[in-house]
């Protein structure tokens, strides 16, 4: 299941990347405004095997990839696996923290909104959460940078850490996380709020919850023990799907905040047509997406006995 999917994804990526006009050698040998000499470009292309027929190049890539070797960057000549390993932690930590934050907040807001349906709180939080997914994230980021970093000077403007921070290192790093985490989690908040809200409403409408409340059981206890806990079950699936987005989800935010992550790195590689790097980034992203989907499936099967039995 996983292996054929990865194979097809790599084939699609290869086909699309090589269909794009542009030449990595011309791009990196031309510096600034001056263009590299055509003869030099041609000689280096030949040396790198970029003039071979495309199927030959794909098979060569595949043979190496199967052995865990994703090739060398055309631009920096360094191993792609090494470069990705350098970039992965920054993306994972940013997306991971944001995921936990938006999930926690989303479940909290969603549950209260469900209990207090059609209240002021319900409307206010709905508008607030929807706004997050309605603002272009680059716009929101730039305005937050301008306000909190430039005007107020409270937070750094970008990067993941300062050169020689004045205070403790952890504090410095934490400060760098604040703005990108706020934007990333705010953008994702709505999904959790809406999902939890409807799931909680459904749970509240279950017969046994109604019965329990009718019997005069303590309302808070019912809400928590029966309704809330049951409402969380479908959320687990959403968590699985969110893992899929850990790597692939934050191109613009990494770009705006100069974040040293995979997405920024991948975008740069696309502009430079660094084929092996693009293939590597696509492949690693796919592995995360597939893993996330698998986790979601497993969770779903686990919590839903009907499906478990039918399989």
């Amino acid at each position, binding site marked *: 299941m996983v292996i054929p999917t990865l194979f097809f994804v790599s084939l699609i990526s290869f086909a699309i990347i090589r269909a794009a006009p542009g030449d990595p050698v011309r791009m990196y040998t031309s510096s*600034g405004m001056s263009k590299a000499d055509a003869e030099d470009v041609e000689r280096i292309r030949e040396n790198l095997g970029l003039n071979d027929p495309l199927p030959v190049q794909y098979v060569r890539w595949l043979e190496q990839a199967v052995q865990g070797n994703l090739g060398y960057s055309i631009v920096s000549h360094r191993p792609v696996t090494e470069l990705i390993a350098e970039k992965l932690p920054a993306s994972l930590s940013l997306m991971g923290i944001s995921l936990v934050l938006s999930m926690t907040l989303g479940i909290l807001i969603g549950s209260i909104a469900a209990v207090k349906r059609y209240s002021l709180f319900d409307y206010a939080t709905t508008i607030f959460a929807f706004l997050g997914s309605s603002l272009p994230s680059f716009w929101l980021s730039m305005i937050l940078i301008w306000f909190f970093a430039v005007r107020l000077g409270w937070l750094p403007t*970008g990067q993941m850490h300062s*050169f020689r921070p004045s205070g403790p290192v952890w504090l410095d790093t934490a400060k760098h996380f604040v703005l990108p985490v706020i934007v990333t989690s705010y953008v994702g908040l709505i999904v959790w709020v809406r999902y939890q809200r409807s799931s909680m409403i459904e749970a509240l409408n279950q017969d046994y919850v109604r019965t329990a409340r009718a019997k005069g059981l303590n309302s808070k206890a019912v809400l928590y023990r029966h309704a809330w806990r049951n409402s969380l079950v479908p959320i687990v699936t959403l968590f699985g799907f969110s893992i899929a987005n850990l790597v692939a989800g934050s191109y613009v935010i990494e770009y705006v905040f100069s974040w040293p992550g995979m997405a920024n*790195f991948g975008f740069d590689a696309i*502009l430079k047509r660094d084929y092996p790097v693009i293939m590597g980034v696509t492949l690693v992203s796919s592995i995360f997406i597939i893993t996330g989907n698998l986790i979601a499936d497993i969770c779903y099967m686990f919590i839903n006995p009907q499906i478990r039995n039918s399989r």
Partner: protein
Amino acid sequence: MLSKPVSRRSVLQGGAAAVGATALGGVTSVQLLKPQGAAAQDDERGILIMRGGVSQFPPTFNPLLNDVRVWLYDGLVRFDTDVNPIPDLAESWEISEDGLVYTFHLRQDVVFHDGTPMTAADVVFTAEKTLDEGVKSPYRSKFIIDGQPVVWEQVDDFTVTATLPQPSGSFLSKTSRADEVFFCILPKHLLEGVEDMTQAEFNQNPVGTGPFKFVSYETDQQLVMEANDDYYQGRPGVKEVVRLNFPNEQSALAALQAGDIDVASLREAGNVKTAEETEGLSVQRYDSNWVFAGRFKMDHPVLSDQAVRAAISHAVDRENLVKAAVSPTASTGNSPINIGWAASPDVTVYEYDPEKAKAILDEAGWTGDGIREKDGQRLSFTVTLYPDYAAPDLAAGMQQLLQLVGIEMNINQLEAASFETEVYQNQNFDMYLDWQGFGVDPDIASRWITNDAGTGTYLDNPSNYSNPDVDVALTAASTALTQDERQQYLWEAQNLITADAAAIWLQLWEAQIALDDAIGGYETPGTTADMDNTGIFREPWMITSTRG
């Protein structure tokens, strides 16, 4: 958050220096006169945090493989602010009467960052590796003249000769580390015997002779260098230099304003203006010979008509358009060469005059209300844009102004890599807008000489411009022995090219460097001709900083 250091406004040297002419041939020996590094005491030396200019994070730190514009290396010669060659690692040089043999006498007090002395063997090694076809160097063709390689030989420990197959007025500039050339002297003892240059351990741990030593590099994020206290011109004024990544300029500006960095080269007018208005920041400017120009496809059914090309230049208010789209201080070019001894004073200038544009078109038979026509051919074409930040506005403005005289111009902006292929390889365009120019040496031949049939994959002259008189002039210019002779031929070529209205010249590239007041002691290049490998400063070792 770093607090802003105490403001200490430094004496700034601004303005572009006038460019004079000196003899190129014969015996030249210039003595280097430089003040000592500004800060002598170690505890006075601060650090410098910056967003560098072009390629501040080179793909590798090996200058054989790519442009390395960090302050790690030196070349044989450098250029002063008037673009005259001055000594770098070569303290003097002689050129034989026939212009074929260059003899370089090297300084004897230069050591690499690892303490090994720099000798003639290192120079010859660097040149040979550049020429080695097995090394994937994009600079090999710089040392190929008329199909033949330049022969480098070691005479003694501190003397080398380079023998050219035929005279070349631009050869000396190719022994510098300046823009477009990047001849950086490498340590033979560290690179000798490396089989595959792309995999050399050196590429991640570079060793040069420059004012700063490599300390660490976090890919595309942060480069740290420390002062090379043995630098041959003196101890650098800052003890450490940090270069940080900012993929977009607004973030860099925000970091400057917040005091996170000290220096950034800026281009976008709004950001420059904001930097100027920010207390504690100042902006330095200098012009260059890079000009953003529109080149016409010379065999296009509409654009092949000189009258149409001239009318286009007259119809566009180039000066105001450039000031609006680029920056209020930006200058407008009028020729392939705009600054310095090589710029001709007699070029045809197409001033803004829409009535004249209409008259020219009427006279040439392009008539009609709305979009003009001639023999059933509409006066319409498409411009292909390089995605430079001002390009969309320049094109949008041109489009509107051309419409007023009855010319239809459609716009097709491509992403950079696609643009390279479409324009320079496939020649798939009517007109294109891109940067044209040069760093140090006014060698414009490849962009204007008639294309040979079937040369290479990419064309420097994709517009197929061809004028036999220009061919003669530019060929003579490239083999001329004296600067006076070169100047004469280059002027002639420019006069012919502008009379043909072979291009529409728009903005000159203007370097705009925003600096924190904590930074002092620097010298701006005057023109970008001597951007060296910095893109920002002329003498990085002289910079001082009060940032702790």
